């Protein structure tokens, strides 16, 4: 199985984008070899700004560049982008609707051994709550590549949530990503799994496994958490049972966004696979995903529970 980290795909896409568009500038906060903005820095040193370990300055400077006509991509780890610099993002970027693209890497538990201080488990919730912010969580390398170009073409703030480890490839170049549009990867009539990021692959595995239980399960990749594709959520709800899956706390993320639509427009039984209001810890990514209930098996169990089937 081919694998690539979404942060790696991001770094490569930035270089491609930089060649096409001279207005694109990139900023980092002493993590360029981890966020992969180092590729851009190497090819376009004059258009790269390392702000040092100063994430608030990173976001403020990006805002200033955008207000002067540039298309800045500002990168650091997700905990620091959405957390440390929250006010700079809220009041400095989102409120004035400044054209800054925040590409936050090392999101979620798959950060692994660095532990809880470095694992953003609430960044989708934070960024989704801010007006004017577009929130994108790509499911693989190709979707990341296209999301980078789409973000650059979009007018306004974007939060792009990327991961550390290499993850399975789902899409090829025929796929067409569009901001705000979900993509149905698998049809099914018995239940629907709505997932984002690394959990999309787990959802596909789960759906495959559920065929042995006689269940045909739809799989929907909602990579744009905001604006949410309501039609896609309602189509999923038509199956009568929805399971959401995200590498994030169940408070305020994809599951909450889906629940908001379902509760107000089409109530159906809903289960959320995600982190249960707790911080992460050190460990191998796979061990953590298992411990915190973020595997295909957890999705399978959730679907069966909703369908009244024994595990």
């Amino acid at each position, binding site marked *: 199985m081919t694998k690539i980290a979404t942060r790696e795909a991001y770094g490569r896409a930035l270089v491609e984008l930089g060649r096409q568009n001279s207005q694109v500038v990139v900023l*980092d906060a*002493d*993590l*360029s*070899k*981890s966020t992969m903005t180092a590729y851009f820095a190497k090819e376009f040193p004059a258009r790269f700004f*390392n*702000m*040092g*370990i*100063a994430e*608030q*300055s990173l976001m403020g400077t990006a805002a200033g560049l955008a207000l002067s006509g540039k298309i800045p991509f500002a990168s650091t780890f997700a*905990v*620091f982008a959405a*957390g*440390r610099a929250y006010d700079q993002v809220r009041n400095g970027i989102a409120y004035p609707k400044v054209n800054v693209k925040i590409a936050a890497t090392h999101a979620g538990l798959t950060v*692994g*051994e*660095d*532990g*809880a*201080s*470095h694992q953003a488990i609430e960044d989708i919730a934070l960024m989704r709550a801010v007006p004017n912010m577009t929130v994108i969580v790509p499911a693989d390398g190709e979707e990341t590549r296209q999301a980078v170009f789409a973000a650059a073409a979009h007018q306004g703030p974007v939060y792009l949530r990327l991961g550390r480890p290499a993850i399975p490839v789902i899409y090829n170049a025929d796929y067409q990503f569009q901001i705000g549009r979900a993509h149905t990867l698998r049809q099914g009539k018995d239940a629907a799994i709505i997932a984002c990021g690394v959990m999309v692959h787990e959802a596909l595995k789960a759906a495959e496994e559920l065929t042995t239980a006689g269940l045909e399960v739809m799989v929907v990749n909602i990579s744009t958490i905001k604006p949410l594709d309501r039609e896609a959520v309602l189509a999923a709800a038509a199956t009568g049972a929805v399971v959401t899956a995200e590498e994030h706390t169940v408070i305020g993320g994809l599951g909450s966004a889906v629940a908001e639509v379902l509760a107000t427009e089409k109530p159906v039984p809903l289960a959320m696979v995600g982190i249960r209001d707790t911080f992460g*810890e*050190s*460990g*191998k990514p796979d*061990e*953590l995903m298992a*411990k915190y209930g973020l595997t295909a098996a957890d999705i399978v169990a959730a679907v069966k529970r909703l369908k009244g089937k024994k595990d």
Partner: protein
Amino acid sequence: MGLTADFPELTATARRLRQHIIRMVGAAGSGHPGGSLSAVEIMTALYFKVMRLDPARPDWPERDRFVLSKGHAAPVLYAALAERGFFPVEKITTLRQLGSPLQGHPDRKALPGVEVSTGSLGHGLAVANGMALAGRLDGRDYHVYVLLGDGELEEGMVWEGAMAAAHYRLDNLTAIVDHNHLQIDGRVEDVMSPEPVADKFRAFGWETRTIDGHDFGQILAALEWARQVKGKPAVIIAETIKGKGVSFMENEAGWHGKAPKPEEVEKALAELA
């Protein structure tokens, strides 16, 4: 004065801490050796000579406090705590494993002896200020130490804390800057220069002293000096070498956050024998 030969016990302890760091990070397969090794003499002086501590009572109200603001240097803190008797030395090889009290960055809930959970850079000085203010309120004479990275000085919050420490005349607090001149993306002076560091602290109202951070004579004298400073906070700027003690790690930015492979562990331990 100042030669390592003048401090045989501390020198031997420092060597053991370095061995622990290498074993620990090697076993974990990830972690931060460079900035752990640069702080070994500072940590040895604090934990084995200067600080008032009781490993049997990690919550003793009269204890001196140590805040590892540069939390990624957790291995040097764990090495010091283990060697000082806060937990069994055998545990060090569980670093970064699922369920270990030795989290990738220090977690006060997981390991007694860790005063503050750190890992997000820039927080430590403000937290240390709070501990110093509480000590004053409670009439306790404990001293608060905080260790900062030089790259960490780029965080605005450090200077907010520096302003507050001087404003409240926190002379029961000593900051130490591990001035190893490297951060992740390269030389501190090249990435985002915080220089001139001493002048900046002085301008913020601090007393400063610059020393060789690997020389026990200078470290002990500076820590003693810092305790004598009255009416102001004091900062010791310790000139250090990142990766100190392991030839192939010294002054190499690449060893900031990379674990040695088994053969590199052997090579490093041979140098530290």
